[in-house]
C-alpha cells in the first residue's frame, strides 16, 4: 500500500496526517503523554493478538506505527554501519597519506609505498590503490602492473595465519615438496590460496635462508624445522 508522504512526526516516527489527527484527538481527550499513548496502543495491540482477534480497532494504525518503528531502527543501523565503514576508510586513507608523505610523494617510491600498505593490511585493497594512483598521479594500470608482477603483493585478503613452506634447493633435496603437498592436503587448498574461513593462507617460498633446518615450514613467525609430513596436521591444528 502506498503511504502518503508527510512531514508529520509522532515521537520520531513518521505518521500520516490522518494518523496524526487521530492521535492528537486521543491525546486531548485522555490527557496522556505521547509515549503513554504509544505504549497503550501497543498494549491494546498485544491484548488483541493474545485474544486471537485479528482486526482490533485502531489495529491498522498501530501496525503501521510498528512497521514504521522497525523500518526506522533498521535504517538507523544501516546508517551507522555506513558511517563506521566511512570512518574506517577515511582512517585507512589517512594512513596511506602518512606513508606517501613519508616518501614526499615521490613517484619512484611507488614500490616502497605499496610494500608498506601491504605490510599494514596484509593485502592491497582496491580503494587504497586508487588513492595512491590519485595522490602520486600514476595511472592505475601501472600500479596493477607492479602489484601483479612482484610476489610480495596480494590483491586478495589473506588469512589470519600465514603458512609458508620453503621450496629452496636445500629444502627441495630434503623433501620440501612433500611438506607442501601435505600442508595442501591438510588445509584443503593449493599453495597461494586462502581457506574459506580465512584462517590460513598457504604459500611456497624460494628460500628462507635457514637451510640447516630444512625442510622448513613457517607459521606466522614460528619456525618448524627438520619437519616430517606427519607432523603438519598437529602443528596447524594448534592455530585457531
Amino acid at each position, binding site marked *: 500500500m502506498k503511504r502518503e508522504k508527510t512531514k508529520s512526526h509522532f515521537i520520531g516516527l513518521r505518521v500520516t496526517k490522518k494518523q496524526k489527527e487521530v492521535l492528537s484527538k486521543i491525546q486531548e481527550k485522555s490527557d496522556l503523554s505521547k509515549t503513554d499513548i504509544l505504549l497503550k496502543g501497543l498494549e491494546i495491540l498485544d491484548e488483541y493478538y493474545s485474544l486471537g482477534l485479528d482486526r482490533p480497532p485502531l489495529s491498522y494504525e498501530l501496525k503501521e506505527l510498528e512497521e514504521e518503528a522497525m523500518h526506522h531502527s533498521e535504517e538507523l543501523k544501516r546508517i551507522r554501519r555506513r558511517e563506521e565503514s566511512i570512518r574506517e576508510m577515511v582512517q585507512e586513507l589517512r594512513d596511506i597519506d602518512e606513508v606517501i608523505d613519508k616518501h614526499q610523494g615521490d613517484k619512484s617510491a611507488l614500490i616502497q609505498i605499496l610494500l608498506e600498505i601491504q605490510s599494514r593490511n596484509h593485502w592491497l585493497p582496491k580503494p587504497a590503490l586508487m588513492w595512491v594512483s590519485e595522490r602520486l598521479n600514476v595511472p592505475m594500470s601501472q600500479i596493477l602492473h607492479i602489484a601483479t*608482477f612482484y610476489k610480495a603483493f596480494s590483491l586478495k585478503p589473506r588469512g589470519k595465519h600465514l603458512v609458508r613452506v620453503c621450496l*629452496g634447493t636445500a629444502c627441495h633435496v630434503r623433501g620440501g615438496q612433500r611438506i607442501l603437498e601435505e600442508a595442501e*592436503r591438510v588445509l584443503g587448498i593449493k599453495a597461494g590460496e586462502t581457506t574459506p574461513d580465512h584462517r590460513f593462507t598457504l604459500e611456497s617460498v624460494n*628460500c628462507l635462508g635457514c637451510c640447516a633446518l630444512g625442510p622448513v615450514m613457517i607459521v606466522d613467525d614460528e*619456525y618448524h624445522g627438520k619437519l616430517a609430513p*606427519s607432523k603438519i596436521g598437529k602443528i596447524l591444528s594448534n592455530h585457531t
Partner: protein
Amino acid sequence: MGKIKSASELSKLRQKILSKRDPKKPCITICSGTGCHAYASEKVSNAFQEELKKQKLEKAVDIKRTGCHGFCEKGPIVVIYPKEICYLQVKPEDVTDIVSQTIKEGKIVGRLLYTDPHTNEKIVHESEIPFYKHQKRLIFGNNRKIDPKNIEDYIALGGYKALAKVLFELTPKQVLEEVKKASLRGRGGGGFPAGRKWETTRNANGEPKYVIVNCDEGDPGAYMDRSLMEGNPHSILEGFIIGAYAIGSHEGFIYVRQEYPLAVENTEIAIHQAEEYGLLGEDIIGSGFGFNVKIHRGAGAFVSGESSALVSAIEGKVGEPKPKYIHTAVKGLWGKPTCLNNVETWANVPFIIDNGAEWFKSLGTSNSKGTKIFSLVGKVNNTGLVEVPMGMSLREIIYDIGGGIPNGKKLKAVQTGGPSGGVIPKSLIDTPVDFDELAKLDSMMGSGGMIVMDTDTCMVDIARYFVKFLSEESCGKCVPCREGLRHMLRLLNNITSGKGNAGDIERLEELSEFTRDASLCALGTTAPNPVLSTLKYFRNEYEAHINEKRCPASVCRELIAYYIDPEKCQACGICTKNCPTGAISGKKGIVHVIDQKKCIKCGACIDVCPERFGAIEKISGESIPLVPKSMKVKSIR
C-alpha cells in the same frame, strides 16, 4: 657523539672505545643470524639476561648479540670470551649451567662442546672446530665479534680506517688503480672485474653518477649476502663509500630483498649511525667528500637481481630487464652512469685498501683472487656458511669443512651457481673452485650456493625443479625465455611422471639451445644450464625415466611405489596409524600391506617405520611383489 672531523679524530675515538673496554671482562656472544633465530636464539639471549640478573652478575659480564657465525647446523651458537669457549645447540635450559659453571667458576660444560665425529674428542675453542679450522675467514670473520647494531664495535676492530686512508691519502684514481690491480671480480655471479666496471662508470659521460649495492640474493639455497648484510653492515657501507669516492658518485642505493627484514633493519641502523658519526652524508670525516645512501626494498622478483631490471625497480617501475645495447655502467638509473656491485664485492674493498692489492692477490688462483663465501647446504653434515680462498677443491669443502654426507649415504653431485649454474658429478670433485674452473665444467660460481646431493637425489627432478623455478620467475617479456622454459618444463614434467617419449631428450637439447641463444637477459641465457649439465653427466637417468619408466633414485612420485617387505614387517601398526589415507591394512601379528590404489605416496610410512625394522621400501620400475593375504609375521625380534 659529534661528527668525526679528521682521520686523527677517528683513531682517537678508536683508542677511546678500546680503553673503555676491558679485554679480560667476560663477554657472552650469542649468534642472532637468521639460522639461529629460527632455532630461537632470542630465548637463549633472554635467559642469559635473566640468569645474570638473578646471580647479580649483570655488571660483571657483557652480553652481545652478534651476526651469523656460519655454523648454522649447530645453532644457536654461544661463544664466551675472553677464552673463546664455544657452546653449540644451546637451549634456554642450559643457561643456568653456563653461568654458574663457566662464568662463575671457569669450568667448562662438556655436554655443550663440539664433539669430533671421528675421534670423539671434545673441542673447546671455536676456531679449532674442523668446520672453522679449514676456512679462511676474511670478509665473514668479524661477523661473530660485533654487534651489528653498534657502530663502535666495528670501529674498535679498525673499521672505517680504510675509508680515512682513502679520503686523506689517495686520489680517486689511485683507489681505482688499487682495486684494478687486486683483480677483484664481482661476487654476484658473472665474475666481471670490479675495477673495470668502476672505471667505465667513472669515465662515462653524465652527472650525477650512481652506485648500487645489490642485495637481491634470489638464488634458492644461498644466503651469504644476507648474513653479511645482517651481521656486518658497516663493512659493506665502508666499501660502498670508498667505491663512490673512486667513481665520483654522491648518491647510492642499497637494494635489499623484502624477504630479509633483519637485513633492512640493521642496514637502516648502520646508515643512521654512520651519518651520526660523520662517516656518511655531507663532508665525510671532514674531507669535503659527500655521499648519501638510501635503502630500496625489493618486492619479491628473482629477475630483479639482473642489473637493468634492478635499476628499473629502483626507479619505481616493474623490475623487468631491458636490452643492454648500452651497459648500466654507462646508462643506468634515470639514464645516468650507474655502478652496481654485489654485497660481497663491496665488502672486499676495505680489505684491499687496508692490506694492499699485492696481499689480496696472494690469495686465490691465477685468475680468481681473494676468498669466496659459499653457502654449503643440502645433504651435508655441517650446513652453514663457509669462506675459503679461491681454488680450494670441492672435496675439501664438502668433506673437511662440511663433514661429509649424513646417514652414511654417498655423494652423488654438487650443484653450484643456483638456477643458472650446473651440477658437478662426484667424479670431478677434486676440481679447484674458482670462476674459470667451474665454467669449464658447464657450471658457474654464481653467488655461491653449493648444494650437496646424495644418491637419494634424482637428477631429472633437480633439473625439473630449477626449470620450474625459472619459468615461474621469468618476467615473460621475451618469448624464448617465457615459452622455451614453459615447454622445457612440460617435457620434464612428462619425463618425471612416466609419460616421457623417445626423442624428448633431443627436444630438450634443442629448446635449451634456442633459449640460451635468443633470450634477452641472463635469466634466460643461463636457464638451460641445469638441464644441459644434468644431461651431460647423468644422461642415463633421463633414459631410465623415459625408456624403463624407472626413477633410479626413487624420487619421482609417479614412478615409485611403497612396499612393505613381509620378511621384515613386525606388524607394529605405527604405519597404519600414520597413513593419512588409511591405505595400510593389517592387524596384530599379521603383516601390513599397502593398498596401492589408496596410497598417495606421501612417504609418511617410511618416516615412521622404526629404524630397526626398516620394512618399508621404495620400488621403481618393477612390479610390486604380491603378499599373501593375512600372512603371519615371521619372527618377533
